[in-house]
């Protein structure tokens, strides 16, 4: 009979092997699903994982697009990972992402159509501030009244979505938009446009910032007292208090940091790839980033890889849809399998499998 035995410490070797194992298991299970749908499983899996990177027809375009898609995921996930390590559950990054974008758009529209150099930097500040301020609401309520930050931050996502919709239909509606909803498109406003830094690479300021976030995150986590404090606070709150960590201050810091990262991601997205605030501006980066943070094991480098992997399945999934006529639902199921197996095999790094003889009764 199989039993699970908790390891005294998580296995380092398994922590590296499990993601690879999960990808292999996904390929097997997903391949079976594609076969049942009447598609060649090998070709389908090659299309999803290989074509975006190496197919001559698509790769030159889709490789840069991986960065564009992974950028906001990584930036938000790195921000969230600090709080998660300290058991601070900011589930509302999606809302903070929206509020960052709205704040940045507000700045851009206030200066439209001037071409001052400071418009873009000011938008960056506004984006970070918007996300930070939205995250401080659950932080304040928790510190002051002991409310649950999971519920408050999550509910504030829906509030933010309604504000976004109101903005798209009301105050921010493009006066030259023929009565249609949605703000001006910042792609047509050079001073505010977050354009590609080097044509054809997909690199925009948001991607650069995500890269910086990974590096800063790594330094903070491994080399800075802040990283130590949050690890201790997460694992042994009492010990942290003895070590002089103020839990309320740490809570505000982590919430604010993750909110600012999400707000920045929203800002770069609205100023660049998306261009406008519409009622469908947010497409779930804030929620997907939670998955990315955990897939990356809350480690900045892991998050970077996880973000790229998620982006790969999105873009590869689209190529599979158009070249193999696979339905979108099959691609989503495939992505779901990947997450399922990644989290499922995680058990191996924390537990050891033992085979025991059943005791005779």
């Amino acid at each position: 009979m199989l039993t699970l035995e908790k390891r005294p410490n998580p296995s380092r070797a398994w922590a590296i092997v499990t993601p690879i194992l999960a990808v292999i298991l996904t390929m097997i299970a997903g391949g079976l699903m594609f076969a049942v749908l009447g598609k060649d499983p090998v070709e389908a899996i090659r299309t999803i994982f290989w074509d975006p990177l190496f197919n001559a027809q698509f790769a030159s375009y889709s490789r840069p697009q991986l960065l564009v898609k992974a950028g906001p995921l990584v930036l938000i996930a790195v921000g969230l990972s600090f709080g998660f390590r300290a058991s601070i559950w900011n589930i509302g990054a999606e809302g903070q992402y929206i509020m960052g974008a709205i704040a940045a758009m507000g700045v851009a529209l206030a200066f439209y159509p001037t071409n001052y150099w400071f418009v873009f930097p000011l938008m960056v500040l506004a984006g970070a501030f918007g996300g930070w301020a939205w995250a401080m609401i659950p932080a304040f309520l928790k510190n002051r009244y002991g409310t649950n930050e999971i519920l408050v931050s999550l509910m504030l996502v829906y509030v933010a979505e309604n504000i976004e919709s109101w903005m798209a239909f009301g105050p921010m509606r493009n006066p030259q938009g023929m009565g249609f909803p949605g703000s001006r498109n910042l792609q047509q406003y050079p001073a505010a446009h977050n354009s590609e830094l080097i044509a054809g690479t997909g690199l925009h300021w948001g991607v650069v910032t995500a890269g910086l976030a990974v590096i800063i995150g790594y330094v903070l986590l491994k080399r800075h007292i802040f990283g130590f404090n949050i690890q201790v606070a997460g694992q042994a709150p009492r010990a942290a208090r003895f070590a002089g960590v103020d839990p309320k201050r740490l809570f505000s810091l982590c919430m604010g940091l993750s909110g600012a990262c999400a707000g920045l991601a929203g800002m770069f997205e609205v100023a660049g790839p998306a261009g406008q605030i519409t009622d469908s501006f947010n497409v779930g980066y804030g929620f997907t980033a939670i998955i990315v943070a955990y897939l990356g094991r809350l480690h900045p480098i892991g998050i970077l890889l996880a973000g790229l992997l998620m982006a790969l399945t999105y873009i590869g999934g689209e190529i599979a849809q158009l070249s193999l006529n696979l339905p979108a639902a099959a691609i989503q199921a495939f992505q779901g399998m990947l997450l399922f197996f990644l989290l499922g095999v995680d058990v191996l790094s924390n537990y050891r499998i033992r085979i025991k003889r059943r005791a005779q009764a």
Partner: protein
Amino acid sequence: MKRRDFLAGTAATGTVLASGLATQASAAEPLKVGFIYLGVPGDGGWTYEHEQARLKMVKHFGNKIETKVIQNVPEGADAERSITQLCLAGCKLIFTTSFGYMDPTINVAKKFPNVKFEMCTGYKDAPNVSNYGGRFYQGRAVIGNIAGHMTKTNKIGYIATFPIPEVVRGINSAFLYARKVNPKAEMKVVWVNTWFDPPKEADAAQALIDSGVDVLMQHTDSTAAMAKAKDAGILAFGQDSDMMQYAPKPRISSIMDNWAPYYIQRAQDVMDGKWTAKDSWLGIDTGIVQVGEISSAVPAAVKADAMALHDRIKAGTEHVFTGPLNKQDGSAWLKAGETASDGALLGMNFYVEGMTGKLPS
């Protein structure tokens, strides 16, 4: 980097890519046609009708055509990537089937001057972008006429989606024609801010039923409101697709989109080398907008009156918005005998005189 240079750079790479693909395609190869869907065909409404048209197109052309579909594409940044991937996959004609794809379509069209784009319900022009849409307000005049005849409480319910010209036009049209046959008719509008959300649609239907409405119209896609109408024993109209499963009561008629004639024509134009960019706003006369069979629950005299109106609109002898007409606030809009221009209709953002309630802005 200056924005001008950036644009020139991407345009150049796009041209190289596009011309590279053009040399690959020989005369014997089928025409590749791409489709971007907002949802999945199973929605039973908007995307379903586009899918039906695609299937009819495939049936019509056989192996002279090859279609490629990407489903569930969010409006905004993801759309731009999906459309580009269809171009890279060799599509020469691409249908982007939702309003929110407009800016992404225009952006991609600049990079692929040899690909033809068909933008559903958009208004921005480019040398290789056509806009197409249906004059659904014509169909709504016919069902407004039926509703005006059939209501006993003189209260007609309308489940509206977003306060955009397309929806406002439909409400005005239905209201005007209900009033023409029933001067006491009132229109009660509920805004649900979604195209497809069955629970919300059902709630809206219930609220309207509770306020005394006995005929229900909707601009939303699902059959949820229809089910509520059935329970309450009132009458309703199908939307986007026929919803015949609810005939003869509560479904007494419907308004349908049938894109097939247009799609087949445009693909033929590309094959013959006759495709040019143009804006098409297609009405009852083209078969794009259809009024579903009027059921046996409607008295013969009412049916005859509605069909006569249908035929007058089809023949072009009656224009739905003909003066004298005032706006809701009493200000003059159209003089006696004057008909509304397409430009005025496309930007319509006000209720006509007699409507109660305030149009959300």
